């Protein structure tokens, strides 16, 4: 190594890291894999299938516990979905894993035609949702929720943390029919255990109440929203957080009730493009019901996102805690 290199400032890395957890944040290792192993003991119909990403979706935990119930389909996402459909036709409940980009963009028609049209019991768990990798557009699934919401019969879930994922796994197995769930993998933050919260499929939950702002959010943006609420409390801004882990079917009645309480700025925050995700779903639901609070969206831009280190990118695109806090303060004037 040359001395010139050694003197340069250390650059932030976009290397694929296994966790989105902040420094010092409490985490749980591989909550999806462990929850699936636990559930599989009671449900012999569960099989695990992947397209060369077992180790990167925490399905390797299941593969180690149940090698005879684990099926490697190779780097072939269309095959993965079609074969999962065939397996489900024969009475199994496949949990299939890959990255969100590959499932939704490469294998969309296979999920649509082979799984959803026949209402098959296939559970699709996809890592790297939204902007949770710095690898650039090839790996960033900024539009996965829009795509999956548009598919008839598909239940769509965006969990916040390890607790959400642990409780989501048995809930989706209990639900009959196809499910698309976003997955956080590796060392997954644990946040919701500090609140009076339990995951229920199809239910939005008010995790924290607040008089000035209501953030309606899903996935990791609920974690951010709770951090924002703590940060803005110092400025005497009271922020409530309504967590909506089930994107479809949307818990419209809870959303309308909370958004309809007068005097609050309503902010929908999502780890997804502004197009076709939670924000537009809620905006449309509010308009249809004639509920018209002050409404704002915090979401990723309609653009091919940059490569880089995640903290850099979350700041750049306004979904870090600090960026979000500043945006909301700005809106409040």
């Amino acid at each position: 190594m040359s001395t010139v290199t050694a003197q340069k400032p250390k650059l932030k890395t976009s290397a694929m890291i296994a966790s989105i957890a902040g420094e010092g944040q409490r985490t749980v290792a591989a909550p999806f894999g462990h929850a699936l192993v636990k559930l599989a003991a009671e449900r012999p119909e569960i099989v695990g299938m992947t397209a060369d990403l077992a180790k990167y979706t925490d399905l390797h935990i299941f593969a180690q516990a149940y090698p005879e119930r684990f099926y490697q389909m190779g780097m072939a996402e269309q095959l993965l979905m079609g074969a999962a459909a065939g397996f489900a036709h024969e009475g199994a409940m496949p949990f299939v894993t890959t990255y969100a980009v590959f499932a939704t963009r490469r294998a969309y028609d296979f999920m649509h035609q082979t799984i959803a049209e026949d209402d098959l019991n296939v559970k699709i768990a996809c890592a790297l949702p939204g902007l949770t990798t710095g690898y650039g557009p090839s790996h960033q699934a900024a539009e996965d929720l829009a795509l999956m919401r548009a598919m008839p019969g598909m239940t769509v879930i965006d969990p916040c943390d390890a607790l959400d994922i642990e409780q989501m796994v048995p809930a989706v197995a209990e639900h009959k029919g196809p499910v698309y769930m976003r997955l956080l993998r590796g060392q997954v933050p644990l946040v919701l255990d500090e609140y009076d919260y339990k995951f229920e499929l199809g239910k939005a939950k008010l995790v924290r109440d607040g008089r000035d702002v209501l953030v309606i959010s899903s996935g990791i943006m609920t974690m951010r929203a709770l951090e924002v609420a703590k940060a803005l409390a110092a400025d005497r801004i009271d922020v409530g957080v309504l967590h909506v882990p089930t994107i479809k079917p949307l818990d419209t009645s809870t959303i309308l009730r909370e958004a309809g309480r007068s005097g609050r700025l309503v902010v929908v925050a999502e780890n997804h493009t502004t197009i076709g995700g939670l924000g537009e779903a809620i905006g449309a639901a509010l308009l249809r019901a004639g509920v018209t609070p002050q409404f704002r969206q915090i979401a990723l831009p309609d653009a091919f996102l940059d490569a880089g280190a995640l903290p850099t990118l979350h700041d750049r695109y306004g979904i870090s805690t600090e960026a979000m806090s500043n945006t909301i303060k700005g809106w409040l004037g």
Partner: protein
Amino acid sequence: MDTSVTAPRAKIAEHAYRIRRNALRMGEVQGQGYIAQALDIADVLATAYFHAMRYRPEDPAWEERDRFLLSNGHYAIALYAALIEAGIVPEEELETYGSDDSRLPMSGMASYTPGMEMSGGSLGQGLTIAVGRGLGLKRKGSKSFVYTLFSDGELDEGAVWEGLMSAAHHKLDNLIAIVDVNNQQADGPSSQVMAFEPLTEKMQAFGWFTQRIDGNDLDAVIAAFDAARNHPGPEPRMIIADTLMGCGVPFLEAREKNHFIRVEPNEWQLALEALDAGRKA
């Protein structure tokens, strides 16, 4: 009919004739359609449903049945003709083919028709589903076979090759695939749209026990199904069936650009008569 039927050859030939006849009658309902394909694949379907497959007409979901997955959904007219002949679909429904509220839509869908095991039409998907079914049957310890029919045009789809690789990788000896090589797809001869030969060598190289036959030579079709079922190796089984579009109706055999043919109203009767003439010959 809950075990392998193994009807005498003459009976299978009669079933093939009646499958062709059913298809022509359905074609007449719409005045057009994938008639030429139905005529070319009739011998394969007659052999599948009246020689090779286990099923119960009165219970299409019987757990111990052999599964038949139609990947090329537009061949539904041919499969309906076979399902009618097999007693799974009542013959009188033939007149509803492709009409509103019919159980026999133009493109085959599992939720519409008894005995239809998958929704085809988005081409190149059948083999991937068949792989999953093969894995699922093995996991259950089932002795049932999965048959899947797809067309030479579907070989253009990358997912077919994903299925080919994985079936061999997973040693799916309960999977029997039939490729209908009629060398015709939407835009013209399949070999010109996207060259697929040498197909036998490709399938063998992908690890399949492969036979290539004249798909309109009934003896060859029967022998190929027998060999596919009885092959002792762990490989998935491939039958490449070279077929003649419009087989059995000479003036349709001669018609060009016959992926989706228009048949004039007066020609349906002529087609049936030509079919009958060939049967007597």
